[in-house]
């Protein structure tokens, strides 16, 4: 898979990169001191930040087919389901609806098992296709 966009400096801060083994845009973030919350656990903010980049990656991927455009975040709702432990975390986004002006995107984050997410998020984005 060719990464749909160059990850921003914030991605380097939390150690996130595209997982090149995957056919779709999947981000992977190693467990490190930079993303540590309470001892032994990921900070929720880092998990949310990872999911937001995964959502934008999925949206850029979908938008590219239609000629691209600018993306502005409107809002995000994050559900934290399990504590993030000392292992790599992956996140992927899924575009629920790609409208003319608004896109609805979902993202999940998981560790060992994609069917047991540690967190999920819904995002709305404003699109400028001009």
């Amino acid at each position, binding site marked *: 898979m060719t990464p749909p966009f160059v990850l921003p*400096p914030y991605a380097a801060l939390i150690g996130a990169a595209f997982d090149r083994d995957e056919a779709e845009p999947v981000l992977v973030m190693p467990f490190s001191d930079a993303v*540590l919350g309470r001892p032994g656990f990921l*900070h929720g*903010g880092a998990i949310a930040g990872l999911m937001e*980049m995964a959502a934008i990656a999925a949206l850029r991927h979908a938008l590219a087919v239609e000629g691209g455009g600018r993306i502005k975040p409107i809002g995000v709702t994050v559900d934290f389901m399990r*504590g993030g432990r000392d292992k790599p975390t992956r996140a992927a986004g899924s575009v629920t609806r790609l409208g003319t002006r608004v896109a609805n995107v979902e993202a999940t984050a998981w560790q060992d098992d994609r069917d047991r997410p540690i967190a999920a998020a819904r995002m709305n984005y404003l699109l400028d296709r001009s």
Partner: protein
Amino acid sequence: MPFDPARLFAARLGGHYAALGLEYRGYGDDWVELAIPYADALVGDPSRGVVASGPILAMMDVAASAAVWLRHGRFVAHATLDLRVDYLRAAAPGRTVVGRGECYRIARSVAFVRGQAHDGDPADPIANVTGTFMAPEGYR
């Protein structure tokens, strides 16, 4: 022992808090204010120089969590259940982002929080936040 945010943030400046450059600003009966000075490493949109949303969400999560302990009067083990952030506008490049989290109700096992972030003028916020925390052993 009553919960003292100043002592918490003095002792806890490692991990993700340090990576974000999170600073402690102040507190009241049911709120805590934190700040993240602008840094190139936090940028999420290089074309506009705008700080990523992750650091802002992380700061609001930390401020709201501490606000629950303040309203409750002491530390209780809890975790964020959900957090909603509305991005009212992009933060201006170069500006410190200030976030205030407030706890407005504590039920048996769930605490309800809200907050706002701004980049200099509290009357012109960049983000509005609502959320809940859950204490497995309850807020007792």
